[in-house]
């Protein structure tokens, strides 16, 4: 009975996810909404995957990475090569994209995670650019003109990957390892002194984050018919970064909400790309000036409901980031 009570939130969210999935699936299958909105929902799902994967790196582990588009590109191109050139089904493409991005994350992570703060940011930015220029120069995948990819991404795939990403990263955050990552974010030297292998946890966070970014990239590639190196410039990295920053550095539900909201905003403003970027940049500046912890800070949406009851003990400063 106690066990059931403890896991009530979990089963409730599974039920909620299932209901959400079914409703959207019915809506899409019966063609209630047109193609434009279906595409919007798929894009939203992919952005949620990307936002949550970056949330693990920046929000939980505190490693400021602005080269996320690089992992996205690696995942997109690898999966496209598997499905288009080698004739494999989509799920192999997804796994291959994720693994390739994870390997890329490890390659960049092991050397550059000795760096801190802004130096790491610049190194990851440089990595993203190197990835883009490399794809630009490989003729096998179309070079600058890009690669045609057939549309295979469907709502069940996007939803499945999204749910998996959220579950894995939520459970990772709540595990011993996740707590170690949070301690690295709060104070790296203190964490080191407490016997936490900080480099190991930073690499692990990078690995998991880049794996899911690669999966997101694979879904991305199979949603837009064509992939080009120029799509994965640092503007894409900033697009993902703004979800995490606006949602609250350290809040997964914040990142998800920001991804949903900003995808809606950008869909409304597709015809005015400069206006969209001006709004994005103003959001970044004003969030930092007036609410530097983001919309939700390190809190989660669910803690608004649960915290009121089990208030005994625990920190009083609302430091509830492990309650997902």
């Amino acid at each position, binding site marked *: 009975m106690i066990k059931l009570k403890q896991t009530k939130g979990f089963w409730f969210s599974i039920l909620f996810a299932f209901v959400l999935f079914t409703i959207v699936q019915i809506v899409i299958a019966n063609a209630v909404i047109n193609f434009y909105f279906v595409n919007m929902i798929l894009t939203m799902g992919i952005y949620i995957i990307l936002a949550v994967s970056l949330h693990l790196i920046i929000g939980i582990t505190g490693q400021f990475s602005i080269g996320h588009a690089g992992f996205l590109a690696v995942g997109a191109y690898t999966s496209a090569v598997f499905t288009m050139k080698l004739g494999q089904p989509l799920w192999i493409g997804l796994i291959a994209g994720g693994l390739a991005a994870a390997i890329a994350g490890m390659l960049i992570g092991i050397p550059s995670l000795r760096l801190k703060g802004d*130096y790491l940011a610049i190194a990851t930015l440089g990595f993203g650019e190197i990835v883009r220029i490399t794809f630009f120069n490989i003729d096998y995948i179309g070079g600058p003109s890009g690669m045609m990819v057939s549309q295979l991404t469907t709502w069940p795939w996007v939803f499945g990957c999204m749910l998996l990403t959220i579950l894995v990263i939520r459970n990772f955050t709540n595990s011993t390892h996740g707590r170690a990552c949070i301690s690295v974010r709060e104070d790296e*030297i203190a964490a080191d002194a407490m016997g936490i292998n900080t480099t190991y946890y930073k690499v692990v966070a990078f690995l998991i984050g880049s794996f899911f970014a690669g999966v997101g990239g694979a879904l991305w590639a199979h949603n837009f018919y064509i992939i080009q190196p120029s799509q994965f410039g640092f503007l894409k990295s900033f697009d993902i970064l703004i979800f995490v920053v606006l949602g609250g550095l350290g809040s997964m539900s914040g990142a998800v909400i920001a991804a949903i909201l900003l995808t809606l905003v950008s869909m409304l403003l597709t015809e005015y790309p400069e206006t969209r970027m001006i709004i994005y940049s103003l959001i970044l500046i004003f969030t930092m000036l007036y609410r530097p912890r983001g919309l939700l800070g390190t809190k989660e949406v669910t803690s608004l409901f649960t915290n009121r009851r089990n208030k005994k003990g625990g920190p009083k400063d609302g430091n509830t980031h492990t309650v997902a």
Partner: protein
Amino acid sequence: MEIIQQLVNGISLGSIYALIALGYTMVYGIVKLINFAHGDVFMVGSFVGFYSITFLHLSFFPTLILSMVACALFGVLIERIAYKPLRNATRIAALITAIGVSLLIENGMIFFRGAQLEAYPNDILPTNKIDVLGVTVESKSLLILCVSVALMIILQFVVHKTKIGKAMRAVSHDAEAAKLMGINVDNTISATFAIGSSLAGAAGVIFGTYYYKIEPLMGVIPGLKAFVAAVLGGIGIIPGAMVGGLLLGVIESLVSAAGGSLWRDGVAFIILILILIFMPQGIFGKNKREKV
């Protein structure tokens, strides 16, 4: 001779990088902020130069000075509005703001004048060819090199011989102690932004006269590369930025001469990652021990 020709091109390009890198390095030295918007100040300087040449019909040197003044004001404006409120915030918050400011300037520019290219008129500077020991050098690139070197000498003079330079060195060494000694830290930081931005403005005009084509997103890549140059020379160290800029320009030209012109943009970032891993203090930097 081909190699020497490329070397000359590389030094011209490198002097532009060096001018931009100086602004990065000065700002980083004093407020520990990577001013992402610096590349966009460079772009604004280039446009100010373009408009003053085409509409005001100024010649090269008045244009240069006008653009430097405009950029100095612009830099101070950015610092006062966006960075000053964040002086005690975390480094990451300041970095995100800098990214936001950079995006805002670029897209604001596109919003107000469109994304189309502009071309600098090609008769601003005489285009004689001069033979130096069998190498043909355009008089333009010599003049540009001279202007850059002159600006760097003036900068050295300002930093080492004037009162404001002394204040800047004091603040970058220890802002708290400088405040206790009666130095107005806020004004000193603004002066640093002004000097750095004016150098970026000069680089913008020089870039325009040398490469002709300018556009609102032109500042992004040179800005990042100038940052690489600053890191290469040791960030926060003024001679380091000059040497790093020239070195980066020469390396890039040699890479394109060796047939890798498509990889040219990648080289800078590969150098960056190698430098950060093996020699994070840069060429001129001293190895600082981290204290708990």
